[in-house]
């Protein structure tokens, strides 16, 4: 019963929050609503016994990701009213709702299967984080490491893209310009050194 109430409550909240995120023209509302929605989602994780995931959700999403977005918002100066030109708004809703309806149409049928074998069963006596840890560092060690590489890639990408070096494009400069640029940089460098 408690579970049901919690589910419906959080479901309603999440839906409302995300709807606000999607529909509002105030960037600040949007980001706030999204952050709230993220937290509510973590509630689901806790309800479902995925404590570790819930924690991660709060830390990574509501923490790191939201912080990044907030930074982005300030950088792009979109804290105020965002003016967006709407083209064919109906299509958007029709497509979105159609997609939902059709997926739901399938989902209302219960899954009939006798052959689902839990590969890594959830054991009642083991804490969620512990179980996750076991799996993560055995079976999912490789994806985990690859995810590390991925984060490295993202980091490099972020640094490189946002770096100052991008401000001048060698691609668009003629050879002599590049040479000129290069020497002036060199001299600047030397000058700075002195």
């Amino acid at each position: 019963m408690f579970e049901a109430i919690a589910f419906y409550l959080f479901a309603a909240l999440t839906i409302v929050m995300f709807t606000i995120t999607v529909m509002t023209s105030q960037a600040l509302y949007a980001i706030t609503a999204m952050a709230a929605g993220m937290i509510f989602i973590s509630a689901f994780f806790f309800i479902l016994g995925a404590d570790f995931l819930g924690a991660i959700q709060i830390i990574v999403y509501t923490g790191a990701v939201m912080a990044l977005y907030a930074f982005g918002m300030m950088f792009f100066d979109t804290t105020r009213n965002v003016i967006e030109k709407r083209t064919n708004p109906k299509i958007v809703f029709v497509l979105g709702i159609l997609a939902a309806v059709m997926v739901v149409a399938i989902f209302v049928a219960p899954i009939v299967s006798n052959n689902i074998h839990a590969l890594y069963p959830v054991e009642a006596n083991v804490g969620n984080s512990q179980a996750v840890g076991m799996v993560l560092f055995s079976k999912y060690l490789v994806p985990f490491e690859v995810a590390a590489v991925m984060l490295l890639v993202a980091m490099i990408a972020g640094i490189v893209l946002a770096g100052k070096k991008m401000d001048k494009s060698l691609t668009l400069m003629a050879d002599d310009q590049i040479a000129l640029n290069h020497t002036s940089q060199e001299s600047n460098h030397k000058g700075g050194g002195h």
Partner: protein
Amino acid sequence: MELYLYIALFSPLVGSLFAAIFGASPKTSITGYVTSALLFTSFVSSAILLNYVMGGHTVHVEMMTWMATGDLYIPFGFVVDQVSVVMMMVVTIVSTVVHVYSIGYMDHDKGFNRFFSWLSAFVFSMMVLVMSDNFAGLFIGWEGVGLCSWGLIGFWYQKDSATWAANEAFIMNRIADLGMLIGIFLIYWNIGSIQYDVVFAEVGKLPIDVITWIGIFLFIGAMGKSAQFPLHTWLADAMEGPTPVSALIHAATMVTAGVYLVVRSNPIYDLIPNVGLFIASLGAFVALFAASMALVNRDMKRIIAYSTLSQLGYMFVAAGLGAYWVALFHLMAHAFFKALLFLGAGNVMHAMHDELDPFKMGGLRKVMKGTFIMMTLASVALAGIYPFAGFFSKDLILEVGFVEHHYVIYTVLLLTAGLTAFYSFRLVALIFHGEDRYKLFGIHPHEAYKFMLVAMSPLLVLAIIAGSFKMTYYQLVTNLLPSTQYHVHSEATYWIMTIGTQLFVMLAIAFAYKKYANWNSVPDGSSAMENRFCYKLLWNQYYIPKFYEEVFSKPYLELSKIAWKQIDLKIVDAMVDTIANVIYKTGENTRDIQDGNLSTMLRWMVFGLVVLLALAVAFTVGYNAVGA
């Protein structure tokens, strides 16, 4: 003897090639001499062969293979037998004469060498035609003479009418040639060979309808070459060519090839008397039809051409009625006097500076005595007055008609004989008698070169005496042809008929003289007679050329233009281009889907997803329905 055969056959070719070497250069008399000499050689060889054949032998050689594939085997085979040797003699005599004559006639022509090349080539083709021992060889000659005829009719190619006539002749002949080809195909697929000897031996075993078809198709070929109705119009137009050409090709030799074909194929036609009757009827019709047109024509050469046509009709009557040897005999006799007539006309033309209207001549006998005599005698022969050649051959045909109980044909032919006499002497009278109307046009006529007249003389002699060879000839050719004798049973009837005919003809001559011998003006189309319907009908050749023009030529051109501009370009080609354009236009019109806007792209992606989902749901329902 084979050697003589080859000499007879190939010396004209050698002459032609020799002349062709100088073809594009200005006149070199040597070409005339060489070709004439070579033709004379050919004539001599033919004579030797004739002598040999008279001894009851035939010469048959197979030079080499021409086509051999599958079961088909066609050699270059030549046969000199009783029929072909007669034709060879006719051809070589007339052509030798014409060659010599042409040296004078073409004296001042720029295309002198070219002329002799063509002329000798023609003789070669004609020799191939008559000497071949199979239908394919015959067809080679058949088309070869057609080609040479084209080249010679259109000899003065600067003249539009000449080239037009050349093309007309060629194309009309081609129509007929198709019939002949089909005939050959029929023979081959039914008999398995197209050698004369095999075909004639086997043809009797075929079902009668097949033979009938063979006969019809071969005759269609003959109709074209011999200018039988309805393919006759080209012959009159062919008079655009130099006159010696008309003499040789369009009177003596080529046009008789059709008759030769029917004569040669007598074993086939013997089996199908119905077709024979048709041939005879058509022949009779053409005889009258052509003669009627000759009555009013004002073109000297065309008159003679119509007379040729008319005489060809006679020959077909004979051939159609099974009197092959008679047909061949008339062919021979006709060749001599008609060639003579044409060459005479050539002299007149020369004298008159290519004026062809006899109404503009008159009184020429004073300046052109030789020609006058020759032409008159030739006309007499043509009219069939005893004892000239025409009498023997033509009267025989009348007799054939009578004996075979085809009285309608007989009557028609008789009538035609009268008409023939009339228009022949109308011509003679207008040209040689009466006032010197040519003076009105400031022309100073002169007689032709002596040697030309000399050259013509053999023909004159033959035109006079050819009839006396009748029995020798009969003996000779009936070795090969059915030897039916055509005698009217009752002596009295025979005499009445013969004398009656002679009288009738003479009456016609007299009438012609009376009417035209003292002609003194040039008609200008205003006289009452000229405005009569009959006259106009005849004058316009029964409106047949016009009919062809309106019904075939023009619509064909129009249709061709439609086929090109409307169908080919606007439908067939446009269809292809339309397919390409539709594809391209589709691209042009839909490329805006990619409008470069990210939102659009995202929407399309979601759209794709929705479509897939919709299909998924639909199929799920379907699966469940099937499962249930």
